[in-house]
């Protein structure tokens, strides 16, 4: 079991470019969570999927952020027209099932927007 895999580990983009972050949950886990971590804001919830269906995206900045989970083996977080304030570590976590929501985190993607 390789754990939750996030790619890339680091991404540098120019202002206005698009960034796509990838997450592969632990095999057999039914839920995928996305969080963003900065020194100022701490760990912020972005969005959450259960059995590939979006459940709660209340933390997503509406205009430029989107997340998909096209199959049970991966989820993507896409940021369009990146801005310097999007710079953060983006963390993905998976959990097994409802009633057993122990979160297992990936190593994160450090996004730097110049």
């Amino acid at each position: 079991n390789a754990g939750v895999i996030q790619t890339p580990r680091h991404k540098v983009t120019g202002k206005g470019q698009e960034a796509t972050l990838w997450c592969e949950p632990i095999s057999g886990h039914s839920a995928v969570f996305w969080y963003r971590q900065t020194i100022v804001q701490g760990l912020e919830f972005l969005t959450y999927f259960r059995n590939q269906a979006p459940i709660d995206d209340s933390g997503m900045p509406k205009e430029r952020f989107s997340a998909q989970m096209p199959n049970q083996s991966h989820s993507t977080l896409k940021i369009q027209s990146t801005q310097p304030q999007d710079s953060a570590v983006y963390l993905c976590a998976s959990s097994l099932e409802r009633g057993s929501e122990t979160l297992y985190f990936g190593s994160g993607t450090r996004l730097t927007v110049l």
Partner: protein
Amino acid sequence: GDQVEQSPSALSLHEGTGSALRCNFTTTMRAVQWFQQNSRGSLINLFYLASGTKENGRLKSTFNSKESYSTLHIRDAQLEDSGTYFCAAEANYGNEKITFGAGTKLTIKP
């Protein structure tokens, strides 16, 4: 508003001593988790509790859902315990979102 209030924000301990970290919740939570974030940034799950107390080695955690708090006790602290500790909880009204506290930065001194 903020549902998970974590304290203290920073804590310094000498090796071999112990202390407690605390999270207070402003709404009823159905479960709490505790994590350690190490120097490489990895978040490691320490405990998941729906109620009661769990112990693992030098760590012990309690979750009191009625009084809306959880604690993480560390005893006989070691240098490798340094890091930032987070609690995270899911509200009881069922939208499944898991909210994190602001963290406690723990420094263990020789």
